[in-house]
């Protein structure tokens, strides 16, 4: 036993001495490394102090204050294709990402939705210092780059320009970004849920909206707002082709146009005024003034204190009003066709944008019928009853029922867009024309996209006496709407119309879940900036 113990002690001693030896060795190594490093640093300093042969090829030039008008042509990143191979080009772009690797530095340059891989490598064109400079430019800075376009053997999967890369020869910083970004662009385009698994971050809505300028740079935002611009353009284009006249209506008004509740009051010199809730009255006045078919695109204000996914306090209204000959379905058909033309235009001209948005927010492609399916309110109620919902004939659709009806219609007709016609008179505003055959119903309609209402419209009463009667029925103070009723006293053509919310249409077309994603700088009860 003692022997063993002795042995053990000896062994321990040996181990200890071994350990000590190792430690010593390590320390020696460390010291050597340190010396080495210092030597290197000194050498580097020497070279720096020596001379940098590429000194003129990089740097941060004076702020562009419009000093000169060079003839330099800047090529857009989306135009960097294999046809441009081996050409020397100038490009202006943002630094999307940068990755230094020894004597090389890989950059991804981005312009709008497009990006390309670029490379700075130590060689006869670039010095060590230049590579270091390129690697240290903060992300999101704007740079001017001169380089040669080269074809690549292997496709670059992470960039939109997959077949070429740019070999940088000169790089100048035009505008430097701060080193710390409030949100990372990669995080902002990550699909919901994908971040959770890999432990990566996603950016929440409020952070996005607080830093909207950066959030809008993401490919998804770029696509969303390009598509929204497309909707506006298609709307205008289609209606002008149909013979409509675009009008501008005042947004500061003296009386509340719709109902009177939910209106913003603004001080107006010695008195107060309201922000327009809809251009309704002015549209109708234009009809009475024989413009026949009018539309307008402009902001609409609603002081509704509702924080839902689809309400904003300020949004863009696309409004249509049209005189018809004998039946308000003439107007319904025109509006529905306008929507169908918009959907077709988006489907045909915005494929890449839709795909880009789908990458982050997957959704089924938008389906529609031409001509648009028109169901009657009664039918909708019957479909809901068949599905087990209990509701009265003259009851308005609740939001869940609206969604359910959308699903039922989609199931049967496979369309995401349909019209529900002939609403009960009781649930519509006082100026809605009653149905001639059944006093309980009215000549009014809603249009739905993916089961959510986007447009609400009706044949308006154009007869002052009937209008007065209906207003009294609704207990509306006649004095307050005198101007409205009077505008029909000098002969008014029968007319109908409706208004669409641009943000909602964009949201529902893309299958997004929050209207704030499709409003560039959204306004809601809790947000007034930016």
């Amino acid at each position, binding site marked *: 036993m003692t022997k063993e113990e002795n042995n053990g002690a000896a062994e321990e001693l040996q181990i200890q001495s071994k350990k000590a030896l190792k430690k010593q060795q390590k320390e020696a190594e460390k010291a050597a490394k340190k010396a080495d490093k210092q030597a290197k640093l000194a050498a580097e300093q020497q070279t720096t102090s020596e001379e940098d042969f590429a000194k003129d090829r990089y740097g941060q030039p004076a702020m562009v204050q419009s000093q000169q008008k060079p003839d330099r042509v800047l090529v857009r990143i989306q135009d960097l294709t294999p046809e441009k191979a081996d050409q020397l080009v100038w490009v202006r772009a943002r630094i999307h990402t940068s990755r230094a690797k020894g004597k090389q530095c890989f950059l991804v340059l981005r312009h709008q939705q497009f990006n390309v891989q670029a490379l700075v490598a130590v060689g006869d064109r670039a010095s060590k210092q230049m590579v270091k400079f390129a690697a240290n430019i903060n992300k999101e800075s704007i740079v001017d780059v001169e380089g040669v376009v080269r074809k690549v053997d292997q496709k670059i999967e992470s960039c939109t320009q997959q077949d070429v890369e740019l070999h940088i020869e000169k790089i100048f910083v035009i505008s430097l970004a701060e080193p710390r970004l409030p949100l990372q662009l990669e995080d902002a385009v990550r699909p919901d849920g994908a971040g959770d698994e890999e432990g990566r971050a996603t950016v929440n809505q409020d952070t996005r909206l607080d830093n909207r300028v950066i959030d809008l740079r993401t490919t998804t935002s770029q696509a969303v707002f390009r598509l929204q611009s497309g909707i506006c353009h298609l709307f205008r284009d289609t209606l002008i082709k149909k013979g409509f006249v675009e009008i501008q209506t005042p947004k500061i008004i003296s009386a509340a146009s719709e109902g009177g509740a939910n209106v913003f009051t603004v001080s107006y010199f010695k008195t107060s005024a309201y922000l327009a809730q809809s251009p309704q009255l002015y549209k109708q006045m234009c009809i009475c003034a024989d413009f026949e078919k009018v539309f307008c695109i402009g902001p609409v204000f609603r002081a509704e204190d509702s924080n839902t996914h689809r309400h904003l306090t300020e949004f863009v209204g696309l409004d249509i009003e049209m005189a018809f000959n004998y039946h308000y379905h003439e107007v319904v058909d025109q509006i529905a066709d306008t929507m169908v033309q918009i*959907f*077709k235009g988006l*489907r045909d001209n915005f494929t890449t944008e839709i795909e880009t948005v789908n990458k982050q927010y997957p959704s089924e492609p*938008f*389906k*529609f*019928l*031409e*001509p648009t*399916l*028109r*169901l*009657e309110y*009664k*039918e909708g*109620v*019957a*479909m809901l*009853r*068949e*599905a087990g919902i209990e509701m009265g004939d003259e009851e308005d659709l609740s939001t869940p029922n609206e969604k359910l009806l959308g699903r*039922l219609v989609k*199931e*049967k*007709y*496979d*369309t995401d867009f349909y019209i529900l016609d*002939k609403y009960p008179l009781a649930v519509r505003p006082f100026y809605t024309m009653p149905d001639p*055959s059944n006093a309980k119903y009215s000549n009014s309609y809603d249009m739905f996209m993916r089961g959510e209402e986007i447009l609400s419209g009706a044949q308006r009463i154009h007869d002052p006496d009937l209008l007065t009667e209906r207003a009294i029925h609704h207990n509306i103070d006649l004095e307050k709407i005198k101007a409205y009723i009077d505008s029909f006293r000098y002969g008014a053509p029968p007319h109908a119309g409706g208004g669409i919310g641009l943000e909602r249409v964009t949201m529902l077309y893309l299958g997004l879940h929050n209207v704030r994603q499709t409003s560039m700088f959204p306004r809601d009860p809790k947000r007034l900036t930016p």
Partner: protein
Amino acid sequence: MPMYQVKPIGGREIRVDLPTCMYRLPNIHRDDGDRDHAFQDAEVDPAVKALEARQDEIMRRLYDLKAAVEGLSKTITTPDADIDVAHLSEVVDSKPLAGTADLDTLLGKNYGALRDIVINANPSHPPLSLLVLHCLLRKRFHVLSTVHVHSSVSNVPPHLLACFEEQDKNQSRHDFQLGFTLIWKDVPTPQMKFSIQNMCPIEGEGNIARFLFALLGQQQDPITATLVDSWIDMAIFQLGQGSSKEKVAVLRTINAALGRSPWLVGANRSLADIVTCCVVLQAAGPVAIPANVQKWMKSCENLPEFNGVYKLLQ
């Protein structure tokens, strides 16, 4: 005796004061010598016997049924085992039983909405027979017919968009008895949807044709119905989708059948004629059409309900 024997705790006879306000019933625990005896004599109660016999009978019928179904499934999976329609048709003298077409009994309870039959069809292959049936339905009911184009297809030829006659625009949807909504859509086979709650979609032109024909309320005896079904299947699958060899064979069969009778089944125009004729019109193509078939197609063409179809083909 595996257990202890214990003396009774109470006395032998316990007097219980029974209330007098209740009925008096015979004691059910007392030994009833007579009944016991009878039970042993007959071994089993006749009621139980009857029950057993009934179960045996049910089991026997179930086995029969199983055998029948197995036989049937064999005939279905082996195409050659199909019945020879051409010969059967001589035997049967079908008499269309005039039935009443009550939409409530045929389509179920109405919740106040337009009963809308939605048919999805590919514009590259219009379901002609369904258009013929649509004409027949319109004769019988007040039908609202509409045509739509689904976003999955573009460039639908204008004559397909105008395949229904103009109708009264002044009526509102709920004034109609039946809706017939045709949607041109990118679908492999025609598809019909009616009640999404209680019915699965019906796939295939032949099956939809059967459904629509049933709405007309003509009841058929089972043999006629089987003959019609078999002609329809032959037309849709072998003539419509088969090779040219198969097509020639089917046309020959049709020709033979039409040699014996002016129509395929029975003495009158049946669903078999409608579907088969439409498929011949569409699918025969380069294959030569035999004489009897040509004559029969001429007589189909003269039927008013075929007007729209011929218009579409021109």
